């Protein structure tokens, strides 16, 4: 029974991680045409990403010559993720505090409405946002991507901070008031520090989802602003190229770093 369970766990993790392992392995495969065939170890695809000249076979005409395009897409993604994360974190946290601690009519209904964007299929949200922007006569731009991402990432931050808030002893805020702190001082000195792990977790999640989003961004990005996922999607349509494995590997690596950072910060600041 025991060994069966062990086997099951191993199979489970293999199932989840095998595709990732394959991508990482292929990113070092020297065979440029058929990545299923191992042709020796190379770092060429990584070098290529960073602009080094790499010798490649003539048959590979559709090669992405332009590394600048890739880096531009990465820059767009990082810019969008930065602003989106900042805005969504501030608004999502404020909403969680307002709904969790304030008292007003329609509080419960509002909380429900905030969950809706998370449940909504991306494609519906994408079309809805596109029509909305067009109706307003807005040019599709970096701004529309940021607004679009915020509409659903606020919900993610809200949910995470709300969970943290729900687990918080309300007596903490009462104790702060009891000791003479005004509501604003209590917010600054007690509530936000106590919520910090949740706020940070929400922000990291928002950042990762924003970096990763394809479907919604595809609708609202316009032609001048291509994010990394949209760019990669475009590359794949022209055939899977070995650079994609290298890009994917780098993305996996940065995700692991970000997630690890989040876990570490969380473990370090666990309040009693």
């Amino acid at each position, binding site marked *: 029974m025991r060994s069966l369970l062990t086997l099951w766990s191993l199979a489970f993790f293999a199932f989840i991680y095998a595709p990732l392992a394959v991508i990482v392995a292929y990113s070092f495969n020297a065979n440029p045409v058929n990545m299923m065939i191992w042709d020796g170890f190379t770092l060429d695809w990584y070098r290529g990403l960073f602009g080094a000249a790499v010798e490649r076979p003539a048959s590979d005409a559709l090669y992405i010559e332009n590394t600048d395009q890739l880096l531009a897409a990465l820059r767009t993604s990082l810019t969008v993720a930065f602003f989106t994360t900042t805005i969504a974190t501030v608004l999502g946290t404020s909403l969680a505090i307002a709904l969790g601690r304030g008292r007003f009519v329609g509080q419960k209904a509002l909380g429900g409405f905030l969950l809706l964007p998370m449940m909504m299929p991306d494609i519906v949200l994408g079309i809805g946002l596109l029509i909305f922007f067009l109706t307003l006569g807005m040019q599709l731009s970096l701004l529309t991507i940021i607004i679009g991402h915020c509409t659903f990432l606020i919900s993610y931050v809200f949910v995470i901070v709300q969970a943290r808030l729900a687990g918080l002893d309300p007596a903490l805020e*009462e104790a*702060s*008031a009891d*000791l003479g*702190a005004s509501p604003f001082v209590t917010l600054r*000195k007690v509530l936000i*520090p*106590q919520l910090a792990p949740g706020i940070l977790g929400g922000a990291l999640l928002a950042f990762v989802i924003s970096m990763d989003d394809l479907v919604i961004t595809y609708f609202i990005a316009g032609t001048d602003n291509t994010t990394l996922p949209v760019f990669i999607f475009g590359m794949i349509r022209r055939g899977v190229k070995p650079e994609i494995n290298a890009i994917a590997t780098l993305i996996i690596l940065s995700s692991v770093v970000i997630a690890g950072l989040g876990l570490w910060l969380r473990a370090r600041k666990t*309040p*009693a």
Partner: protein
Amino acid sequence: MSLLSVRGARRVFQTPEGGRLAALDGVDLQVGAEEFVTLLGPSGCGKTTLLRAISGFEALDEGTIHLQGADLLRLAPYRRPVNTVFQSYALFGHMSVARNVGYALEVRGMGRAARQARVDEALEKVGLSGLGARAIGQLSGGQRQRVALARAIVAEPRLLLLDEPLSALDRNLRQQMQLELKALQARLGIAFVFVTHDQEEALTMSDRVVVMRKGRIEQIGPPREIYRKPRTRFVAEFIGETNLFDLDAQGRTPEGLIFAVPNPPAARFTACLRPSDFHLAEQGIAGVVTKVVYLGADLHLYVQPKVGGPELRVTARDHAAAPVVGAEVHLGHDPEALHLLEA
């Protein structure tokens, strides 16, 4: 003039079923400047609501609360010059012990250096000298309790509110803290209003005990008076163990036990006798021991009177010849000890 004065306090809650529940139903209470007053009662009696009305976390529907003549109800909780020790301690986990204790001074804008001395002093008063740099997570339950106490007294309030602060401690530590709290209160010279449902705790520490039931005050008095001379059946039963007798004008129970009552107050009334007021005698109430509970120095006997009726509870010294289950005994009592209840 008393330090704290509560008059006509009423607070009605809406129950989930749509009913109305009076958590406070006309409460009057005066607390003196250096008095240790305990609010005692079963859960739902309104004691915590009263405490929270004083600290400001609960509003009143009617009534007034004055502290040194100033109307507390006009002040937001954070402007009220009272401090609270919370049941859950409510310590700030993201701050050190010293910063927790100095919080009240910090939010008043006192400088770090000036705070330090006051924090050290408060920590010393609760017996935690030198632990200021610790994190809250590193403390034991008893130490957290003391930090909560130090944090609440650092701003030198005239009135300290304590909401069942000892309920999470084990029995030995609780008894030790009871004595320390009483000593601390005397040393600080301030008033304590202490909420508990533990009658032993109330009797041990208080100058006066306020017994509450269903939003009303049932009786106020010094511990001895509450124990020896309960006013109502509820107080008699809630405080310690007791034997209650429904008597007629001749001092007879329905089963025929007879007690000497010189001045019966009514045709029917209730009297109480504490288990320790009975003693084993040559004659008196005849009965059979049905149960013996060993309490260390004392035994607790349950005696079924031969005439019938409820079992009597009797305290007896434990010794070699003490009665065993099935023994026939006679119970005598001091006629003076029989206390007549008003209601």
